[in-house]
């Protein structure tokens, strides 16, 4: 049982609060889906693009994005790729167990600000879909607040595709363009083959009324941004989420620095024009 000691006069920024695992189910060979609820019953209160620090006592903490939209009440979801100690220990969790949660931390995709009233272009590579899913579902749950929605999703192989059921729902939603590609297909794959940038020229977009949300592996950004630039999208209309080594999530430990910026506080979501000249950013 994980409980927090609330006797402290001032809040301890490192103290996790207990959350119950409601669901833990494998998605792919490497990724597992989780649904949690804070043991206190309190809503997490996140915005799309924010992350939390997940604690496994004795193993450590890892920054993980919230994948569910805040419009979904009562619980929140994550997808975790097994890459090491904490993520590995999370893969051993099952419903009924507890973890510690700190957060939500960081900036969010401006679903409540600059994205409103605009056409939205979501570009996700691989596990980059996980945090963006929160924004996609938020936008679709507030459909009238936004213009046309385009979702581009790319993975290495068809086996790496996440949320395939949900993708079908997105693809058939009103006023949504959904396109997918894989780097390498297989016998059963009938769709696009090629890196994600090959989808961008296929999109019809009006740069004057479009906001792009980009999330994927570090290598993806450079190429996607070049391609968006070609179609006339301005740097202040692109939002990216940067991954860094994060230890504290609260602007103290120094690990997440991107030159003078703190990815955990000033990001992880950045407006591209704010970091275009920051040398360590992309």
């Amino acid at each position: 049982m994980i409980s927090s000691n609330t006797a402290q006069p001032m809040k301890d920024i490192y103290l996790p609060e207990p959350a119950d695992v409601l669901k833990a189910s494998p998605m792919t060979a490497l990724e597992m889906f989780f649904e949690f609820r804070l043991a206190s019953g309190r809503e997490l209160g996140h915005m799309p693009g924010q992350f939390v620090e997940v604690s496994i006592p004795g193993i450590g903490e890892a920054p993980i994005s919230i994948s569910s939209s805040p419009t979904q009440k009562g619980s929140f979801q994550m997808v975790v790729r097994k890459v090491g100690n904490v993520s590995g220990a999370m893969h051993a969790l099952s419903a009924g167990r507890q973890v510690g949660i700190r957060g939500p931390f960081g900036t969010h995709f401006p679903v409540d600000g600059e994205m409103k009233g605009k056409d939205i272009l979501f570009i996700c590579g691989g596990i980059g879909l996980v945090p963006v899913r929160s924004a996609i579902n938020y936008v679709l749950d507030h459909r009238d607040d936004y213009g046309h929605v385009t979702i581009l999703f790319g993975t290495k192989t068809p086996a790496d595709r996440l949320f395939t059921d949900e993708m079908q729902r997105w693809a058939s939603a009103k006023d949504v363009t959904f396109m997918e590609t894989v780097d390498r297909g297989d016998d059963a794959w009938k769709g696009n083959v090629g890196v994600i940038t090959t989808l961008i020229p296929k999109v019809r977009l009006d740069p004057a009324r479009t906001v792009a949300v980009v999330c994927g592996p570090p290598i993806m950004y450079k190429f996607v941004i070049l391609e968006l630039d070609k179609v006339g999208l301005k740097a202040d209309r692109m939002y990216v989420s940067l991954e860094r080594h994060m230890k504290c999530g609260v602007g103290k430990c120094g690990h997440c620095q991107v030159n003078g910026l703190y990815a955990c506080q000033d990001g992880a979501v950045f407006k591209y024009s704010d970091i275009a000249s920051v040398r360590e950013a992309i």
Partner: protein
Amino acid sequence: MSIKKLEPAALNRWVDGILQKQKVYGIQARGDKFVFDQLDRADQLRLDYDVSVTAPKAFLQPPCETLLRFGEKGFESVVESEPFVLFGVHPYDMAAILQMDVVFAEGNPDIHYLERRKNATIVVCDVQNASENVFAGCMGTAVLESGGDVLVTRVGSAYVVESRSARGEALMETIATAPVAGARDLGERKAVWEKNRKLLRRHELKVKPEQLPALLEKSYDHPVWEEKAKRCFSCGSCNLVCPTCYCFNVRDTVSYNLKDGERERVWDGCMLAEFALVAGGHNFRKKKAERYRHRYYRKGKYLHDMHKQIACVGCGRCITACVTKIANPVEIYNRLAEGQK
């Protein structure tokens, strides 16, 4: 605020009195070096020291400290700190502590640091002997106009002891009847300050500290980073000894029963190869030169952009600590300034 004059014997009596009531970490000799350690007797104090091996920040952000405990009951905050006196802190180190105060209090306040800080009474002591590599005189930290709770300055064969806060005043309660420092003593103290401002310059910075951010702004692609970093071992010693370095790592330790354990924070350093490494093997500062440059930018620009203070106080510890002799900030900054004029 009191300002007293104490002969050495009276100073020792005062300190011995403090020792009866409080834990004191004071500056003392270890071989030919100096360290802050628990003081048992006043005569162990070496206020004539040149520089301490480890910066006194270690008593506010220990090299390893428990943040949380976990077990059957879940996670619990651990905020353990009792009142203590830090005796003999040089002005440049006090300047560094004042910077740490800002870092840990701003934004999301860190109770682990702040509680310890709240419990600390700091006796600052003006420098009597310049260390081999000190350049605090160039950084404006040879003398501190304010900061700390008490200031002790050697003037002639005696000490001027001044309280700088209510807490310092309380510490000086037992010397309330000691003679008040006169105009002559204060004049002599001023002379010590003047002398220290001039003398604590074993290396001469050719630019003003406030010009460093602008200088660095233009120097990202300067050849000096590659040139020097070629000889860097990524040992992190320059981070470890630095009074303004506070970056940390967090790790869990589990006790033998595999149930209870602690979450600890330990000192970390941006010069270490794995500082910006993420799982999957991507390192955001993979090259030595990138890490080497980052350290100077962090001290001279990034932290300044946030707090308007240069995060180097000129203690010179990094210069001494670096076995390959490439960690001298003055040398780097002067080099960057060449060809700028």
